[in-house]
C-alpha cells in the first residue's frame, strides 16, 4: 500500500473547531421532542460547526433534517385523515406525530455528530456550552414555523 497518499496532510482543510464549545448531544433530544424536526436540524447543524465536522458530514445533517420535516408533514397529514374530523383526536395525533418524527430526526442527526462529540469529550476537557438559550429560541421560533406549516397542510388536507 502506498503511504504517499496516507501521509499527506488532511487536517489543513478541516474546518477548525470554533472557540465556542459544542452543546451536549443528549440535551438536543428535548429540541426534537418539544420542537420537532426543523428545530433539531438547525441546532444539529450549528452544533456540527462547533464540533468542526467536515462539510460532507454536515450535509448529511441537512439531508436527515429534510427527511424529518417531510415525514412530519406526511405524518401530520395522515393524522388529520385518520382522526376523521374529530378535532380533539386530530390535535393529539398531530402532536404525537410531530414529536415522534422529531425524536427520530434527532436520532439520525445525533448519530452523525456522535463520533466528533465523543472526541470532544475525550480530548477537549472543556465543559459543554449551555443549550437553554438557543434551544428555547429554536423550539419557540422554528417550532412555531413548523407548526404553521403543518397547520397550513392540515387545512389543505381537510378541504
Amino acid at each position, binding site marked *: *500500500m502506498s*503511504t504517499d497518499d*496516507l*501521509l499527506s*496532510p*488532511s*487536517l*489543513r482543510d*478541516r474546518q*477548525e*473547531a470554533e472557540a465556542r464549545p459544542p452543546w451536549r448531544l*443528549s440535551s438536543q*433530544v428535548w429540541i426534537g*421532542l418539544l420542537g420537532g424536526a426543523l428545530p433539531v436540524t438547525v441546532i444539529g447543524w450549528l452544533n456540527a460547526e462547533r*464540533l*468542526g*465536522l*467536515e462539510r460532507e*458530514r454536515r450535509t448529511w445533517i441537512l439531508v436527515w433534517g429534510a427527511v424529518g420535516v417531510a415525514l412530519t408533514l406526511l405524518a401530520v397529514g395522515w393524522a388529520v385523515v385518520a382522526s376523521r374530523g374529530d378535532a380533539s383526536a386530530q390535535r393529539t395525533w398531530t402532536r*404525537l406525530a410531530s414529536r*415522534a418524527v422529531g*425524536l*427520530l430526526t*434527532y*436520532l439520525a442527526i445525533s*448519530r452523525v455528530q*456522535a*463520533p*466528533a462529540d*465523543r*472526541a470532544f469529550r*475525550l*480530548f*477537549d476537557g472543556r465543559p459543554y456550552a449551555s443549550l437553554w438559550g438557543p434551544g428555547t429560541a429554536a423550539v419557540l421560533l422554528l417550532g412555531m414555523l413548523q407548526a404553521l406549516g403543518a397547520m397550513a397542510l392540515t387545512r389543505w388536507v381537510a378541504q
Partner: protein
Amino acid sequence: MSAGDLSAAPLELAERYLEIERPEEALAALARATPDEDPERYHLLRAEAHLLAERPEAARDAAALGLAVEPESIPLLLVRSCCHERLGELAAAEESLLGALRQLPDEPALLCRYGRLVARGGQLDKARRLLAEARRVDPDSREAARLAMLLDYLAGDDRAAAEGGRRLLADDPEDSHGVAMLGLTLLERGDHGAAREVVVPAAALDPERLGGLAREARIRTHPLLWPLWPLQRFGSVPVWFGAVGLILVTGRLASPRVSSILALTYLAWCVYSWVVPPLLRRWVVRRGR
C-alpha cells in the same frame, strides 16, 4: 575536566529531574548549560520540561528554537507536534508529525500517533487506513491495539471497543490509559456495574487520572439510580416510544383510567430522572468517599 564535560553534566542532571517529574529543577539545571554543545538535546529537554510543567506554548517555542538548528530532528518534531495538539492546533500538529513520519514512514508507533491525531479531527476512515498500515508492519503492536480501541469507541462500536480494552488489560492490568478507555466504553454501553469493577480498583493506583471516571461509575451504580436502568441501557428515545406506545395500547385495550395512571407514572419517573441524578452527583462529590 573539559568544558564539554562541564556542560554535559547539567543536561544529564536535567534528565534526572525530568525522570522524577521535577520540571522547574530541570529548567534550573539547563540554565547552567551551554546550548551550543548539544543543541538538539538542550532544546528537547527544555521543551519537555515546559510540557511537564503544563506550559505548552513555552514548550512549543523551545522546540521551535531547536528545530531552527536541527530541522530534521525527530524527537523535536514529535515534541512540537505534541505541544500543538495540546493547544488544539491540529493542523500544525499534523505538519510536525508528518515531518517525522516522512523520515520513518514504517514506524508503527508514529503511524498510530498520526492515526490518533486524524481521529481526533474526525477523520475516522483515514485513521483506520493508518491503523491497517501499522498492523501490516507490526501485527502485535500495542499502539495499534490502542488505536483500534479508540477508533471503535469514537465510531460508537462499544462492543468491539470493550473487547479490545479487555485484551489490552489482559497484557498489562496496570495500564491506566487502557483502564480509562475501557471504563468509558462500558459506561457508554450502559454496563455500569462492569465499569465500576474495572475502574474503581485501578483508581487506587492512579487516582488523579482515573478518579473522575471512578466517581462517575460509583454514581451510576448507586441504588438511587437503579430505577433509571431502562434509560441508561436503551436511551431516552426508545424509552419514550416504548412508554407512549404502552400508554396508547393500554388506553385502547384496557381502560382510559389505567392509561392515565401509566402516563402519570411515566411523568413521575421522568421527573425523577431529571432531579435525582444531579443531586446525587453533588452529594457524592461533596462526600468525597
